[in-house]
């Protein structure tokens, strides 16, 4: 056993590390990969390749975007990430040029793992790091003559004159790592190249110096990402100077690295990732998954609340269960437009299912245009293809479908849709697109965020099958605590469709109680009337602070009088 460990111990540790990374992404954060994937549109296309190659770091970016598209399969994506992290660790070890202190070689990879908790860190950074470590490893071998001595300074300098610009163009400013490790003086040359290139590139100097594609937001780079190459350099330079140490030191290093590994979780903002998960569930239309998640932990952020309300509406439960969850006013139903990808895309999903196809299209477009690194989005392009198919704008739809045809994962869907282009009957009979076509409004007006209830009313009047419009229409005045408006809407709705869920009955009972009247026979369930009386008694005994008031937490009355 001891022999085995002596021989394969390092690989065992690396594999254990890889497994930890794999399970981390596969089990804990699969939706984070979907998030990354939707913020790019990798095309198998020479133009796409050339566009990427036209900027420093473009090759690393191309490679990273190629890999990121495989996040569509979360198991494969997690395996890919595990492999990349193992590569970072093993290459660090290679560059350490020592036979001891193996645990220290995990430090850069662990810091990277922590840093990737920031969802804006791009895989291009990881690829650029790996490529440079490979360059250092290979070139340093070439720099050694057969007798193990360094080749002459002139020869190495000449080699670096060629290597630095090539590596810079392929990987971006991470070339500084290669330059520093191979021939420290060449870092000046690398810096000069970077500064010079900034004059000819359509980017601010700061962005060129920090890496055009390392981080989603231009002109910033988190400190953790700056630290990683410094760590690799320091380990490569100084680890051989450390004392060899014995088992005790080895154990200490292992413990330190494990502790560091445990701290990785600190880099992952749970609230942020909760929203990312909600968005993912909406994207894949896992309505029951959303409700189950909300039942476990009540959503309280606008995006998660609106996702939960959407899921309830899609399963026709909104009127019965809306107040089982925390509500944030009408913004929790239809959030206002914000200039960012995540919330805009989710809001667009709600409008899409409501039948406001033009508004969904607009928000999809806005979401894509909001991506800070100017990428396009496969998810959005698919949605744009859908909205144009529904609107019968087939030439535009074709443009988007042809783009998706050049991807790995969206190609089959695109090809299925391409054959339906121009085929009105096929679109009309499509379960989703045909339905949304029926829901679309035909009379023109300008969309207004201030009149969403009226828009929902028009959607319902236009097509009485649009249950989601009915659910949203009646919930809006309730969330605004506007009972008179609710009463006028509910009459309008109930004259046309049979819809009288729990929230409506509670609100009707409340309205009649305010008027000191009994609701008409059969309009409100007897049990609800009884509960209403109970609530009135409890509320009357102590108002908001009445000890038993919590019993009514899931009712309209509680929301209207106590608020939550």
């Amino acid at each position, binding site marked *: 056993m001891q022999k085995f460990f002596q021989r394969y111990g390092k690989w065992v540790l690396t594999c254990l590390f890889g497994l930890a990374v794999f399970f981390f992404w596969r089990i804990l954060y699969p939706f984070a990969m979907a998030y990354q994937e939707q913020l790019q549109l990798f095309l198998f296309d020479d133009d796409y390749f050339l566009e990427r190659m036209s900027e420093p770091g473009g090759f690393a970016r191309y490679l990273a975007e190629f890999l990121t598209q495989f996040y569509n399969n979360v198991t494969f994506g997690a395996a890919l990430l595990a492999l990349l992290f193992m590569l970072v660790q093993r290459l660090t070890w290679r560059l350490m040029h020592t036979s001891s202190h193996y645990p220290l070689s995990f430090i850069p990879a662990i810091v990277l793992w922590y840093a990737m908790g920031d969802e804006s860190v791009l895989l291009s950074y990881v690829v650029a790091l790996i490529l440079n470590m490979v360059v250092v490893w290979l070139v340093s071998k070439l720099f050694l003559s057969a007798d193990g001595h360094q080749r002459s300074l002139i020869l190495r300098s000449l080699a670096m004159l060629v290597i630095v610009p090539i590596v810079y163009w392929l990987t971006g400013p991470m070339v500084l790592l290669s330059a520093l490790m191979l021939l420290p003086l060449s870092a000046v040359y690398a810096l000069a190249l970077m500064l010079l290139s900034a004059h000819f590139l359509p980017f601010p100097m700061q962005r060129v110096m920090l890496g055009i594609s390392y981080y989603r937001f231009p002109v910033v780079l988190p400190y953790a990402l700056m630290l990683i190459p410094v760590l690799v350099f320091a380990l490569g330079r100084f680890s051989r100077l450390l004392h060899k140490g014995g088992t005790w030191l080895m154990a200490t290093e292992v413990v330190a690295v494990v502790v560091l590994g445990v701290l990785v979780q600190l880099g992952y903002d749970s609230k942020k990732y909760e929203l990312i998960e909600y968005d993912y569930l909406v994207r894949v239309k896992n309505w029951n998954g959303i409700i189950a998640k909300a039942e476990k932990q009540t959503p309280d952020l606008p995006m998660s609340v609106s996702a939960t309300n959407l899921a309830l509406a899609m399963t026709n439960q909104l009127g019965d269960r809306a107040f089982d969850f925390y509500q944030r006013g009408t913004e929790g139903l239809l959030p206002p437009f914000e200039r960012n990808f995540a919330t805009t895309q989710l809001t667009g999903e709600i409008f899409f299912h409501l039948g406001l196809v033009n508004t969904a299209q607009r928000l999809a477009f806005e979401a894509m245009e909001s991506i800070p690194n100017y990428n396009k989005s496969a998810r959005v392009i698919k949605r744009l293809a859908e909205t144009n198919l529904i609107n019968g704008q087939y030439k535009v739809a074709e443009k988007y479908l042809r783009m998706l045809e050049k991807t790995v994962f969206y190609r089959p869907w695109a090809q299925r849709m391409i054959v339906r282009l121009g085929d009105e009957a096929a679109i009309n009979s499509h379960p989703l697109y045909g339905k949304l076509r029926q829901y679309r409004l035909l009379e*023109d007006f*300008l969309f207004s965020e201030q009149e969403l209830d009226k828009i929902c009313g028009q959607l319902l009047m236009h097509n009485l099958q649009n249950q989601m419009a009915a659910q949203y229409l009646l919930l809006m005045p309730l969330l605004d605590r506007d009972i008179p408006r609710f009463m006028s809407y509910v009459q309008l709705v109930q004259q046309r469709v049979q819809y009288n869920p729990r929230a409506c009955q509670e609100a009707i009972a409340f309205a009649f109680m305010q008027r000191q009247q009994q609701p008409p026979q059969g309009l409100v369930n007897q049990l609800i009337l009884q509960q209403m009386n109970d609530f009135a008694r409890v509320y009357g005994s102590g108002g908001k602070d009445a000890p038993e008031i919590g019993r009514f937490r899931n009712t309209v009355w509680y929301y209207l009088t106590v608020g939550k």
Partner: protein
Amino acid sequence: MRKLLSAISCLFLILIVSCTGQVENPTVVDALPDIYPDYVGVTIPAEIAPLNFNSADTVDCIDVVVRGSKGGELHARGDYADFDISEWHQLTQQNKGGILTFTVCKKYNDEWRQYRDFTVSVSPYALDDWGLTYRRIAPGYEVFSKMGLYQRDLSTFDEYAIIENTQVPGMCVNCHSACQTDPSKFVFHVRGDHGATMFQIDGQREWLKANSDQLGGSMVYPYWHPTGDYCAFSTNKTRQAFHVVPNERIEVFDLSSDVFVYHPATHELLMDSLLSTKDWSENSPVFSPDGRTLYYMTCRQQDYPMHYKDEKYNLCSISFDPATGRFGERVDTLINAVAMGKSLTWPRPSYDGKYLLYTLSDYGYFSIWHEESQQWLMDLKTGETRELAELNSPKADSYHNWSLNSRWIVFTSRRDDGYYSRLYLACIDEKGHFSKPFMLPQRHPLEYYTESIYSFNTPDFTKAKVDFDAYNAGLEISSDQRTVTKKR
């Protein structure tokens, strides 16, 4: 770098995919070939880049022979008709004022089909401009990703960025203008956190404060005085709204707008009560070619967004004295579009003073988003005005501008796919009739236009290549050092 890579990959592709074999025993088809873009029967300037085209349907190979009525012949064969630039120009120059006849054969499953020949006229009128400038932008709504101002050499396929918004994060550039196609006097706007109005006069850049207190807004829709001493603007409090029905998208209306003239030498804003009335919106001013008249649009102010369909503009004019910078005391209505139930926008007088191009739509002035937008022409001598049926399409046609010699126009149209606006060029003859417009040639037209996710807008001709230092301009934009304007 990108061009080099592109050339290498093209060469590689040509080597591996070019179709081989001669056109043998073709089946004659009595129909015009279905090609993209549609260049059948168009009129081109001799200086234009080759009219490369694709078969509109999928073919194994296409073979094209072009013969000039005054001599010369050109042959292209491959996946698409790709003509050599210098050979093309040799042919067009040789046939200036003549006709090019295109013989097209297409290969389907080893069978060649020869279609009826079609012709392209080579205009006797020169282009006289180096190329075009335009904004290229995704046809979005409020948020914009990568976009910029670009220039295109019309004799080749080369496009160059003037400035892209990647230069300063969060920046958007729009509404550029050169002085009668002379880019030595150039202006454009920057929007965003570092907003400004940029003036570049004879290589000297100046950044004006985006929002002027005197104006109560920013400087929008510029147009140079022919002397280059003044630049007319409107200042608009613009709002956007979005339609809910399938065929309409964006509506733009102004809560208020006024017209004024800027004098770069003194940084003065020349304003007049007739051009900034309370109940009317004055908009999009342009100078007459003699510089003595200012044309602009006016609309009675409405309650927006409620009455957005009542936003209808007429064309008015007021005299202008370039020596003093004073306006006249009378406003004339030149075109009463409101009486026609229409709204007029984008007036553009030809530089020879003969015509005025404008767009009519049902309402509003942002014609690019109005499917019903049509281009019209007014004869400034006779006052006659007519719809340009020979130019218009069922989709939005707008944003026209004249070439320096007033023989060519460029305009945008969504006729290609209904959504993405493309650039079209057309020639006007002595009688004021336009030739069939042709889409701006591209090296790989089908690939370029079907894959491009950008729209072209506000195109203009440019006499020479715009010399603009985008790197230093980026630094200047970020610095926020701005020149303050003053009211005269």
